[in-house]
């Protein structure tokens, strides 16, 4: 920032540029257009749409097909599988751990032959565009630390989120919009499922300008973006002109470059006042598009509507777009509660992949889908003929990726017959982060920020790019 204001400061000295010209020198949200780092490699993806599934979707009811479990129904999970690994306090003292096979049918889809549950009929249609990573694992066993881990590479709050790292590292491609945008939707599963927190997309110890701007479906899409009733846009224009004129006078007197920056920020705010409503107004989207994403996409605040908005943000060059969806925490009544969120994401994800592909944007947009952990094969609570629940399971779960930089139609990693342990090609949270960064042309070892005397990284002192799934 200092660099820019200095640049402004001296260029202004030389050329006598006025305020309007100044505006064009100041990029989005004060985030440099010039990358702080990288690209370290040829980048495949210019942006990321990360569809975070909060609560922990059940891998064995959606992706990780274990046909052998049907015969083991209600039998005790063998010690040879559990291996004394820690469980959450919710089931650690359970008297028994009966195997609960999924009650959903699985089939293979596309040329890649990806196995998918009947809960995901639409996603199945684009299976060949997707890479399924079945061997994800994490260390956290409870929601808060686990989500925090995925978002920041550390279980305890305080570090920058992945989007903030990328905003810091790669800057913005759009001078009227922030580099990092977050949208939150409610699942149809259980409405107030798992709480989320603003810090999950915060900047941690990075300057706060790198934190996400949250786009909301109720009230102003961006806080305070709308002028108050009784103050129309032309009055606001005049207002900003006058405030800037006064700030110009002060700048001449005090010489503080921060004043020049503030002038530019008021210009940027004004531009956002028109760019954001334009962006969030879906009324001009053709019916065909709503058809792709499903009827829910017409309802503001749904996952489907947010997916459609994500595409519009992607079109406008927003670097990191993150959607949070909830409703996956099925400790009990899973058969009753999983179809809702599955339906929420099935059509919308299909729509997003298809829409991006049709627009030729899938090649440089990386889509990531997944939660903070998986769920246990053993039943939490009582296993009955038509009911089961599943506890948190960090040792293996499935995520999927599609688009920029990712090899399509691959299923990566293997789990044991119980979907309990990984048997081949484990992918840790840090590895996923390293891989996402890699797709964006960033070496995770080199994206660092010095804080408290240490050069911090998103991947801490870990992380390995999963080369096998790269295009």
């Amino acid at each position, binding site marked *: 920032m200092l660099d820019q204001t200095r640049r402004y400061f001296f260029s202004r000295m030389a050329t006598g540029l006025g305020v309007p010209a100044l505006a064009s020198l100041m990029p989005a949200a004060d985030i440099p257009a010039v990358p702080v780092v990288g690209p370290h490699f040829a980048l495949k993806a210019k942006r990321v749409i990360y569809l975070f599934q909060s609560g922990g979707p059940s891998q064995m009811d959606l992706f990780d097909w274990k046909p052998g479990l049907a015969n083991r129904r209600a039998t005790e999970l063998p010690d040879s599988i559990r291996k004394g690994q820690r469980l959450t306090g919710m089931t650690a003292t359970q008297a028994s751990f009966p195997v609960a096979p999924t009650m959903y049918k699985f089939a293979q889809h596309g040329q890649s032959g990806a196995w998918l549950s009947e809960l995901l009929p639409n996603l199945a249609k684009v299976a060949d565009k997707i890479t399924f990573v079945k061997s994800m694992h994490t260390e956290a066993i409870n929601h808060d630390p686990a989500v925090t881990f995925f978002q920041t590479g550390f279980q305890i709050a305080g570090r920058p989120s992945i989007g903030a790292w990328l905003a810091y590292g790669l800057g913005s491609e759009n001078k009227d919009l922030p580099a990092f945008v977050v949208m939150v939707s409610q699942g149809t599963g259980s409405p107030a499922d798992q709480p989320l927190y603003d810090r999950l997309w915060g900047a941690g110890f990075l300057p706060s300008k790198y934190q996400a701007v949250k786009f909301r479906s109720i009230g102003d899409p961006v806080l305070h973006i709308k002028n108050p009733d009784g103050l129309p846009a032309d009055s606001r224009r005049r207002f900003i002109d006058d405030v800037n004129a*006064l700030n110009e006078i*002060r700048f001449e007197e005090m010489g503080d470059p921060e004043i020049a920056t503030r002038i530019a920020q008021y210009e940027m705010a004004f531009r956002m*006042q028109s760019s954001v409503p334009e962006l969030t107004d879906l009324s001009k989207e053709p019916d065909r598009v709503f058809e792709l994403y499903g009827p829910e996409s017409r309802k503001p605040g749904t996952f489907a509507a947010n997916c459609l908005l994500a595409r519009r943000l992607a079109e406008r060059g927003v670097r990191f777009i993150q959607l949070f969806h909830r409703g996956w925490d099925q400790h009990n009544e899973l058969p009753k509660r999983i179809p809702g969120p599955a339906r929420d994401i099935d059509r919308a994800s299909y729509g997003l992949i298809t829409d991006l592909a049709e627009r030729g944007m899938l090649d440089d947009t990386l889509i990531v889908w997944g939660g903070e952990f998986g769920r246990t094969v053993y039943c939490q609570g009582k296993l009955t003929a038509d009911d089961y629940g599943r506890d948190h399971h960090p040792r293996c779960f499935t995520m999927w990726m599609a688009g920029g930089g990712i090899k399509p139609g691959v299923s990566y990693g293997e789990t044991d017959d119980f979907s309990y342990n990984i048997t081949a090609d484990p992918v840790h949270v840090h590895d996923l982060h390293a891989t996402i960064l890699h797709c964006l042309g960033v070496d995770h070892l080199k994206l660092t920020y010095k804080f408290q005397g240490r050069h911090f990284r998103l991947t801490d002192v870990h992380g390995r790019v999963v080369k096998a799934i790269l295009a």
Partner: protein
Amino acid sequence: MRLTCTFLFSLTLLPAAPMEFNRDVRPILSDRCWACHGPDSVNRKANLRLDVEASARPKMAAMMARITSTNKALRMPPVYAGDGLTEVQIAMLKAWVEQGAPWQKHWSLIPPQRPATPAVRNAAWPKNDLDRFVLARLEKEGLAPAPTANSQTLARRVALDLTGLPPAPAEVDAFLNDTAPDAYEKYVDRLLASPRYGERMAARWLDAARYADTNGYQTDAERFMWRWRDWVIEAFNRNLRFDRFTIEQLAGDLLPNPTLDQLIATGFNRNHRGNGEGGSIPEEFLAEYHADRVETTSTVWMGLTMTCTRCHDHKYDPLTQKEFYQFTAFFNNLDEKGKVFKYGNSPPLIPAPTRAQQVDLARVDDAVKTARTTFESMVEARQSGQAAWEKTLTAGADWQPTRFQVNHFPLNAIEFDGVNFLDQGTGVGAFGFQNRFTVSVRIKPTAATGAIVSKSSDKEEQDGWGIYLKDGKLQVNLVQRWLDDCLRVESTVALPLHEWTHIAVSYDATRVAAGIKVYINGEPTRMRVIVDDLNQTFTTKEPFRIGAGNGFRFKGQISDLRIYERDLTPRDAAVLATNDSLAVAAQVPAALRSQAQTDKLAWAYLERFAAPEIRRAWADVRDTEHKRALFLEGLPTVMIMREREGAEPRPAFLLSRGAYDRPGERVQREVPASLPPLPAGAPRDRLALAKWLVNGEHPLTARVTVNRYWQMLFGTGIVKTVEDFGSQGEWPSHPELLDWLATEFVRTGWDIKATLKTIVMSATYQQSSRASWDLLRRDPENRLLARGTRLRLPAEMVRDQALAMSGLLVEELGGPSVKPYQPAGLWKELAGGADYQRDKGAALYRRSLYTYWKRAVPPPGMMAFDSAGREGCTVRETRTNTPLQALTLMNDETYLEAARKMAERILREGGATPAARIDYGFKLAVARAPRDRERTVLLASLHHHLDRYQTNRAEAERFLKQGESPLSEGLDRGELAAYTTLASMLLNLDEAVTKE
């Protein structure tokens, strides 16, 4: 950062200038070499240490060869380690080696010595010794200080710095009109004496102490630490010495006979987040709390990044992993749980009455005493009356306690056959985890397992509360979730079959198993705890069932079931249990009666049969005592530090890689070896640790503290890295000044107000903040202090001053946190549950440090202006400049309402002409009159908006609807709308949100 390094370098590295190890060399070695060749013994490469002189010195030539090698395979630092050394850095190392590689211990670990004040050429400029250090440096750099800021600027600057609020126009005028030579000093003294001073100082301390109104983590429900927050404000206002401030917060509980205030102070190290997430593993988070206390304490008092040593030896500083865990041992000996209560405060906690409540409590105590005295004065009449009454008792006369009784089911020994039960509807026994209650009942079981009473789901191991027999033993279950969110206790003895047994069960709403008391036949009985982990309430929509619950049925007889909405006392339980009627009890000679018989007779007599004045006196005693109990229950609580009972502290272990489940070597309480030792013979406890920090010989405490005050006033610390005084921290811009301030701080008795006064009285502080382009280029961050500081206000000041300018500010010290304006839906969309319920009236206009701080969704208006997030300790102030700030100032209801009220004020108080009013408003906003050019812009703008709103009155009406405060009557709405726009512009000025 890079800019600053180059900048300092360019100022300091003159050709052949002597290299100073700590200033010039240590930062390079530390940052680029020590991660692999430093203190961390486990990860050290090639068994080479470059952080210790003895091992480094013989390797100097080899080191220089490697860092200058053109062979990539040999070159150090290795390519994979990221950025290599710059040419400048290599040149500096080279110069240092050529000069004999003089070594120094790390500067911040050498206790500060009071430096001699340096000689300066411009002897007229310094106002105090502080200035001589600054000026000496400026003169060395060939720079001259800036002129003194004009009085208005100074009046506003120092008011904002010391009270966090702008001066009222009248205060500015009083200061300007005071021609006495000490006018400024008197003005400063007034500010320091203002109660607003304590609030201003508390704001930064709350950031450091990670204070919040919620527990953090998943549910992030409410907690109550505001009594601690108010203690902090008070401590600053009464200018509590910093050493006492330290000792009371770190170890007030260990002082002899600690006062309530000293206990409240220890809330400092309970402000960290607490996890109550279902299924979380308590040991995991207990380790987290201990680490947080160490990290916060070491950052705040020592500027040490001890957090780095949680998993391994420090990479840069002489701190080992073992020392980290030795330090945790000072903080791990509380009776606390890793899984905290989801809702409210978790033990250890105390009731913490406010000053006003302490007065009220004395009054309530007096009422009890008075009632007791009156009652005792009637002893003779009572005794003779009771004796006479006892003689009149006829067979069968009886009495049972009915005070607080809410249900009575006589049942008359009704038979239960293992199938039948009584459904009493959902209204009976509708208690939750925050309700006190008691159940009293007689049973005669014929089967060893069954349900006596319940308000539970009628399936096994489900939610709700109930009293059961299980294999003859009595079980009390208060259950939200059977395995991990409940209190479940069981008697150690079995109840007899085929016999009548009286049972009383009480619960005291403490949410712990020890809060369940069980009496069998009037005797307290020991209960085995099965689960002691209640986090959510156990209310259900189930009916109250007698003889059924959780899938069980009762076999046998049940009689005389009573439910009370208080937790009855053991004596109550004994009276309920006794089989003796009044008449039977009265037959026993008084001296031979059991306590239950005595109580039953006395209580029955006093309640029902005594003379009216005696009955009234007895009722007074019970009512005043009950009121007192309710008063105590209604008091705010605060979480405190309190050592566990018993002599042996909880053992502490080195945790391998920091993992809670990989304990290694057991460690004892100790301070790091690179710091002075604890005094020999002193008990190794938190009190000793706290005293050690402030004994005046600790090399860091005073430096770190004054450095934060410097940051508060100048925006950047003398050591910029206020949180890191280690090798990776930045070299102080004015080392001698830092040491002078630190030693002065200790010398003056850790006097915070005196230290701040010294700084604000200095010529350095009073300089104009106008920056020449030349100086800006040379010193963009103003580290040399050749000018005053120009800084955007901290978040809370941005809002507070808008409230002050508009006249909306409610100046009231302390109290529960308040919920001012915030856009609707922010809590609900993230956290679920109830949305933010904003307050009404005065609570909307309190200073921002009283704003309710929800960690998961912090107040957006504060976060937009770079407020600390309060998840963990934050001591570094940061400032950004973003469009979201502009949007907030322009469109947030808070600022629009403030603009409207400011406009009303301008119209009422600002004179008759637009020009006069503009001048008045301008002065409200920035404490000075506008220049002609500024007035011209504002006048034109005002006329523009006037034209618009006076022709479009409906628009004006709508525009004026912001905020809850009423519109002043008698003002033209079109004019008011235009002036509101004007006031809003003033609030949006860069100068208005900036301390100049």
